[in-house]
């Protein structure tokens, strides 16, 4: 009756958010006087199993089958559901990534188990797992309890601390077969194009975001680009040549407001907010973003918010710890220079 934790891997490397999930699972294990079992499927199982031990797993179940090298919902769900059925864990925990969302929901349906998704806080109360999670796009929080003998939980990235790895640990490692994997999958992968420059907003410790104000670029668009197209050109140029250098200096990811995305300034995968990503970095620098309630829903969990905006009345300042009133095209380059002077 252990607490399972799925350690998600990409190209044979564990995601650091999975170690956060392992730390969160320990809260459940402690509350139930149990311990944690890491599940590692696919490539590089031995090395990841040893790391799982250092991050606190008492046991590790590995399945190095070649068919698990690339994540596939149907294969992973079949194996996970088989393990749940055979071993009746008290809980199954994973980081709330896009893959874990579908995997955990599917396996929870297979065993008719409760799933509490995207939790930011966890506790055990009278033997039940209680998770705190955002609802209504983060405008309210809810406490949800799972009532089933196995409960599934996904934890929001950066909501739980990374456990301190132990120098030495010897987890029990057990290898299992992959007979559960169906011989034919319903989804047939025809191709994959890797994205250049990962966005990784969910894991970023620092995010630099641009909004509608990105179109106020003093740099003139080419003379044959006019009207709205000129604004789009100027904003894109600003994201690439003003925001990107600041983000690179900080090791930050680039975010954007819905207004910037809808206007065609930057692709959707950068959108932070109610219909984009919900982020909670240590530092969020909002440039030329007024701070509509939909945007706030996506970033209000940030530890320190900095606003750079020409309009001193912009609502974003009310949410921010620090503000500079001014044109982002003057402030951002000055900020980058100051950073390079201070940090070298």
């Amino acid at each position, binding site marked *: 009756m252990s607490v399972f934790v799925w350690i998600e891997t*990409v190209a044979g490397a564990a995601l650091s958010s999975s170690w956060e999930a392992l730390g969160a699972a320990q809260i459940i294990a402690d509350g139930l006087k149990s311990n944690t079992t890491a599940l590692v499927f696919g490539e590089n199982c031995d090395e990841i199993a040893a790391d799982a031990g250092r991050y606190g797993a008492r046991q590790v179940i590995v399945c190095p089958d070649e068919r698990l090298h690339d994540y596939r919902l149907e294969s992973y769900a079949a194996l996970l559901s088989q393990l749940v059925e055979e071993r009746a864990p008290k809980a199954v925990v994973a980081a709330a990534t*896009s*893959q874990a969302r*579908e995997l*955990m*929901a*599917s396996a*929870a*349906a*297979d065993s*008719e*188990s*409760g799933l*509490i998704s995207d939790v930011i806080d966890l506790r055990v109360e009278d033997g039940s797992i*209680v998770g705190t999670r955002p*609802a*209504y*796009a*983060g405008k*309210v*929080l*809810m*406490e*949800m309890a799972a*009532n*089933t003998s196995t409960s599934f939980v996904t934890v929001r990235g950066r909501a739980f601390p990374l456990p301190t790895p132990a120098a030495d640990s010897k987890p029990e490692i057990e290898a299992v077969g992959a007979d559960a994997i169906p011989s034919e999958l*319903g*989804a*047939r992968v*025809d191709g994959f194009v*890797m*994205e250049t420059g*990962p966005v*990784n907003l969910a894991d970023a410790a620092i995010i630099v975001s641009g909004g509608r104000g990105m179109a106020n670029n003093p740099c003139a668009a080419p003379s044959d680009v006019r009207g709205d197209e000129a604004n789009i050109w100027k904003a894109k140029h600003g994201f690439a040549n003003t925001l990107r250098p600041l983000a690179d200096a900080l090791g930050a990811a680039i975010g954007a407001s819905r207004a910037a995305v809808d206007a065609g300034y930057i692709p*959707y995968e950068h*959108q932070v907010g*109610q*219909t*984009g990503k919900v982020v909670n970095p240590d*530092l969020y620098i909002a440039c030329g973003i007024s701070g509509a*309630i939909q945007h706030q829903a996506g970033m*209000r969990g940030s*530890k*320190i*918010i900095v606003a750079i905006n020409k309009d*001193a009345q912009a609502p974003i300042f*009310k*949410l*921010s*710890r*620090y*503000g*500079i*009133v001014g044109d982002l095209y003057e402030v951002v380059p*000055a900020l980058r*220079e*100051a*950073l390079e*002077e201070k*940090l070298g």
Partner: protein
Amino acid sequence: MAHVLTFTRSTPDTAAKVWVDDQGAVTWGDVATVVNPWDEYSLEETIVQASNGGGASTVVAIGSALHNDALKHSLAMGIKNALRLEEAGADCNDSLVWSALAAGAVRKLGDVDLIIFGKESVDVGTDQHTYQLARRLGWTMLSYVSRIIEADFAEGKIQVERMLEQGVQTVSADLPAVISVMKGINEPRYPNFLGIRKAAKAQIPVWSAADIGLDLPKAATTALRFMNPPARAVNTEIIAGADFKEKAVTLVERLLEEKVL
């Protein structure tokens, strides 16, 4: 003939303030509801795919009459049929209960080829019900779809692009299948005047669990309580200085003190 199905729900307007009142209930005052923002894209895609396949489109909502507004909006956009499932005492915020009702409706309809979801529901703040419906039906699930390359209802095949965290995957599957679509897959249309007038007059049938021959499962989760998020006790400092260079230097010093750099 193709039959494309989608689900929707009414949620508070995205710009509305939503809070927990003295009784512990979630409220958004007198502000109107809108169709769940992610569903704008799935509704549009349902209309397009049903029309391409020369077939029918149906929109389903599960829950109280609150969701009639979303159904009427869907009809006004151009979805052909609407249907609501309501079961007294069923906790439709529990995804296993929701997906059991949804699967029952799909089975009762009998001829559905493709189910299209929006990425998630903003009220419950999750997408888990979409995967659980696919699982209950035993249909292939293709999530995070950013483009439908082809839906061939005669051949019973679909090919799509999925936007994943590491890149774009091209994947195909046999129908029937469940997909969830991202923002950006299309430009949702606005309902026109005729559509709105027609939708206003529409009578929306309501089915119960008994109507679809379903023994409802017990809810696997319980919402214990709702809370307002802790107020951000922010004491904003507008950085002062002679020029932007000086302000920038001060800001960097502050951020170093905060240990966020």
